[in-house]
């Protein structure tokens, strides 16, 4: 599976072993070509003009929306383009009507993007704990998801532990009290198309740049009947039907939630990336990623002073090494061509729950291979020597 040849970053930087895919992924030439072509030959604004470039842009933007819908097995009208997962969750946090006493159930496993917006909104936030294994503790879900629950907002896959949420159990509990469910899919979407109907959730958010697309674009999917009930989060052009000096009528979803000129070029790039992902053999890729993850976990687990954080259901392996700060480790690894991340990964409550101040994270994608993993394991041994 020589998938790496699709990504110019690897040819441009020989020796690069990119293991920070949970932060952002590399971009295939097909996506770069599509964006370049649009900006060079097809640039017009959308939903605003009658000339041929405007029509071309409209078609391309609509096609991108259809591509995102295919990726999620959803309807195009349920796809809202945002600037990323954070913006998608912020949109919902701003738009969701909340009454006195309403609760949002999230978890300590969340990325700050799925905690801070709710705090800013002033919502009563209840956080599910984690188990000793680093998974969401769903053992007493009925005590957490009560009739006061206005929304269950959970990570689909943790950006630290790689733990996949048991979505079916969460959906069942939420349905019992009539609460909708939002999944933060930022770390799940890069590992294959998702079927939001099969998941049974009501909202799904993910980022383009982690799915081999450009930065500045993401998706909020919302079940049609949910989106219809939401007011806009931001106001401006494109999201209204009629404006007078006294009043404004909102456009229907998804345009209702896309005020102003959208990130057209980026959406086109994302559409191409998602359709490209749709052509791949995901069962084979999943087996490949799982094998690499297992080897990495085994190798790390055999090292003295290493503690693995979480189960790595998706190929995210976070760990600590006694006596070595992640920043120092990642700095030395960078000198060896290995790109990893050290810190708290915008998940400070989760790190605290895991009993760690900071950690190092290796996050794999479809273009990583056995050599990358072996180089990382060897690199850690070298780093220990340098830092001793």
């Amino acid at each position: 599976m020589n998938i790496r040849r699709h990504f110019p970053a690897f040819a441009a930087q020989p020796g690069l072993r990119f293991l920070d895919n949970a932060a952002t992924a590399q971009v295939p030439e097909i996506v770069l070509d599509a964006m370049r072509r649009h900006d060079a030959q097809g640039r017009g604004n959308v939903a605003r003009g009658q000339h041929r470039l405007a029509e071309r842009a409209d078609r391309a933007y609509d096609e991108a929306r259809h591509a995102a819908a295919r990726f999620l097995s959803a309807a195009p009208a349920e796809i809202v383009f945002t600037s990323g997962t954070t913006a998608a969750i912020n949109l919902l946090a701003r738009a969701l009507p909340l009454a006195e006493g309403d609760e949002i159930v999230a978890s300590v496993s969340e990325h700050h993007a799925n905690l801070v917006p709710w705090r800013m909104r002033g919502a009563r936030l209840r956080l599910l704990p984690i188990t000793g294994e680093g998974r969401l503790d769903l053992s007493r879900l009925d005590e957490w998801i009560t009739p006061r629950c206005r929304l269950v907002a959970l990570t689909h896959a943790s950006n630290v532990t790689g733990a996949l949420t048991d979505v079916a159990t969460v959906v069942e509990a939420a349905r019992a009290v009539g609460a909708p469910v939002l999944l933060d899919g930022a770390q799940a979407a890069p590992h294959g198309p998702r079927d939001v109907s099969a998941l049974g959730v009501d909202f799904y958010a993910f980022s383009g740049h982690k799915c081999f697309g450009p930065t500045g674009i993401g998706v909020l999917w919302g079940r049609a009947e949910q989106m219809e009930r939401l007011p806009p989060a931001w106001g401006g052009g494109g999201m209204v039907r009629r404006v007078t000096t006294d009043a404004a009528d909102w456009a229907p979803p998804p345009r209702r939630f896309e005020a102003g000129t959208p990130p057209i070029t980026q959406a086109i790039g994302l559409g191409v990336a998602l359709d490209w992902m749709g052509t791949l053999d995901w069962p084979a890729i999943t087996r490949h990623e799982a094998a690499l993850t297992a080897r990495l976990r085994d190798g790390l687990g055999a090292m003295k002073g290493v503690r693995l954080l979480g189960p790595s259901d998706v190929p995210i392996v976070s760990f600590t090494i006694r006596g070595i700060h992640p920043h120092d480790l990642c700095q030395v690894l960078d000198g060896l061509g290995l790109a990893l991340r050290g810190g708290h990964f915008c998940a400070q409550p989760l790190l605290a729950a895991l009993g760690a101040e900071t950690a190092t994270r290796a996050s794999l994608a479809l273009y990583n291979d056995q050599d990358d993993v072996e180089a990382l394991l060897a690199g850690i041994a070298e780093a220990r020597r340098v830092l001793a």
Partner: protein
Amino acid sequence: MTGPAALYDQAIKALARAGTGAGRLEHPTARGFADNPFCGDRIDLDLEITGGRITALAHRTRGCLLCEAAASAMAGMVVGATPTEALAAAEAMTALLRGAAETPAALAPFTPVAAHRNRHDCVLLPFQALRAAL
């Protein structure tokens, strides 16, 4: 020397291991705190200022090796100094990271850090706590 070998040479590691000033003062005259929200590094700093000079310093530093080394270097530089001289030491670290030609000898081991923008905050953190205390 370039790359990690330069960044983590013996001088830097020795500073970090020395942990000059690590601890706490029972009755500090001034306190300072600084943290880096991006990585979780933090430093609590106690100063005793008597007769217009910093007569004692203690710090609790939780951070990377570079941060610990910087805290150790800072402690060695500012005990005995006036607050003005101590702030000059803080400025000297900032200037070093900007590529200043002349650097106090105590900060010379940090010269390779200048090339790594993402590590500047690591070595500036102790001096931010110092500024906060003064």
